[in-house]
């Protein structure tokens, strides 16, 4: 009980700090944290599907792109105000995932992963060729009607809210029937079917929810950056990045993905500023090392009490 109260208190303090922070920090830091919140949202969104059901949607970035483009096009071509365009974009992602999910989620594990990659790449190419998206030239969103410093704050709090929202969703799902269904499916799909779980339905629902929040982040991103093009918003690298964040922090936990996102984003920023030229390479190398030494994530590692034996045991086990 005391443990519980302590956690809630810590959490509350953290939230308070994060709310007050932007009023005291420089724009550089505000931007950095906005980026962290964005990846936090993305990681948590995909965690809803991946962490509970074990399915890895390598192509989930497609929803980031769809959300970004829908928001952009709705504002540009249809003149919708930002918030409406944003919700439209996220909803479009939900619908898309719901429809496509029915055939695609019948696939097992890695075939689902590959199919999602295929879908993402196909949509990317289509977006590059279709007129309405302005193709490879990219889309310029309407300017944000706010003064510079205010706009920094605006996007900070917007991304922060998105991250809080998706985290609440993930928490709620874990405690309710969707969470049970997904965990049962991950453990034992036949067993799940035998106790009355319509496995396809729950997988599709989880994917659609993850799509919604991924699209939400995409829409905010589009308005934030002001310019989007297919290679940047449909980049599989983004998916891999947030999947690594989930694995790093601990898939299936609520806090894990957020930890993972913070770590990788801060690390990336440090590396970028120190090793400008080869930062991607160094990041790649770090990914490689993390995968080898901590395949089950930070929280697992933390529970192992940081023991060196556990680390070596893990390496040995990986070596068969």
């Amino acid at each position: 009980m005391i443990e519980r109260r302590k956690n809630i208190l810590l959490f509350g303090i953290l939230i308070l700090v994060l709310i007050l922070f932007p009023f005291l920090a420089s724009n550089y830091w505000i931007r950095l944290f906005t980026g962290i919140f964005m990846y936090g949202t993305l990681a948590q969104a995909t965690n809803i599907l991946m962490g509970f059901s074990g399915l890895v949607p390598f192509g989930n970035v497609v929803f980031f792109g769809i959300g970004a483009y829908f928001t952009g096009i709705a504002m540009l071509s249809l003149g919708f105000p930002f918030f409406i365009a944003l919700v439209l974009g996220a909803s479009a992602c939900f619908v898309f995932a719901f429809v496509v999910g029915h055939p695609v989620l019948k696939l097992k594990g890695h075939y689902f992963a590959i199919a999602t990659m295929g879908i993402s790449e196909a949509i990317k190419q289509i977006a590059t060729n279709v007129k309405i998206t302005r193709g490879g030239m990219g889309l310029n969103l309407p300017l944000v009607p706010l003064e510079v410093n205010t706009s920094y704050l605006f996007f900070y709090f917007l991304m922060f809210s998105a991250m809080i929202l998706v985290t609440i969703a993930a928490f709620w799902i874990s405690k309710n029937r969707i969470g049970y269904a997904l965990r049962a499916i991950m453990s034992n799909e036949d067993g799940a079917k035998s106790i009355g779980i319509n496995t396809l339905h729950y997988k599709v629902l989880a994917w659609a929810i993850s799509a919604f929040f991924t699209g939400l982040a995409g829409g905010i991103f589009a308005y934030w950056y002001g310019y989007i093009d297919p290679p940047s918003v449909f980049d599989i690298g983004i998916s891999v990045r947030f999947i690594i964040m989930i694995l790093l922090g601990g898939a299936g936990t609520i806090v894990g993905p957020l930890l993972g996102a913070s770590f990788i984003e801060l690390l990336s920023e440090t590396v970028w500023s120190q090793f400008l030229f080869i930062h991607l390479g160094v990041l790649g190398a770090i990914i490689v090392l993390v995968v080898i030494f901590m395949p089950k994530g930070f929280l697992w590692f933390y529970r192992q009490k940081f023991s060196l034996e556990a680390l070596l045991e893990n390496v040995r086990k990986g070596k068969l």
Partner: protein
Amino acid sequence: MEVLLSIKNVSKYFGGLGANKDLSFDIEKGEIIGLIGPNGSGKTTLINVITGNYAADQGSIRFKGHEILGLKPYTINRLGIARTYQVVQPFVGMSVRENVVAGVLFGRDGKGRKMKAAWEKADEVLELCHMQEKKNEMVENLTIADVKRLEIAKAMATDPDLLLLDEGMAGLNPKEIDDALELITKINKMGITLLVVEHVMKAVMSISQRVVVLHQGLLMAIGTPETIVRDEQVIKAYLGEKYTLRRKDQGEAKKL
């Protein structure tokens, strides 16, 4: 007696192999019916066909008068048929209680249930199956007997009218078998009909009102345990031709 499940001319082929060939029999409401037969005779296949895990190639299965052949496993479960698996399928990473809650949430009346009500019903089921003390254990830490008991608890959580038990006694010692039999009897007294697939003869014979014998996919015999035990064909199938001839000779010798 009222017929609960009616199996008619059910066949299931895997390539050229006939796992179930033209099986027909009825299960009566409230009975415990045993299903025995040598390995490979088609017992588990039949269970999978009934529960919708396999699609039958031919035939009809009616449950409470409604055709269930072709329905999905989760639909069939919600109609009132539950099963356990020969190779147990507990939900790893969840506690005993959570496993049962899963069954409660998605089984027959699961849809409308709120979480709190689900937890309470789960506790009732655990109580019934004598698993309350272990309720917060993670399934990875359970003994084989407990895991098998959990299988039954999960199935019971879905509120079935018909429970199909697939070799629930395999790997249990005599005391554990007795406990399992006691649980099965208790469940039956609650009004639930049971189909028990078993290799442990003493167990299935002592508890069943009727027994169905499968052999190489065909229905070989059906009757009370006493009749089955004396049936020549059954003895031949289980114990071999030589034994049967030897018994016959002994029988002849005795008569003389």
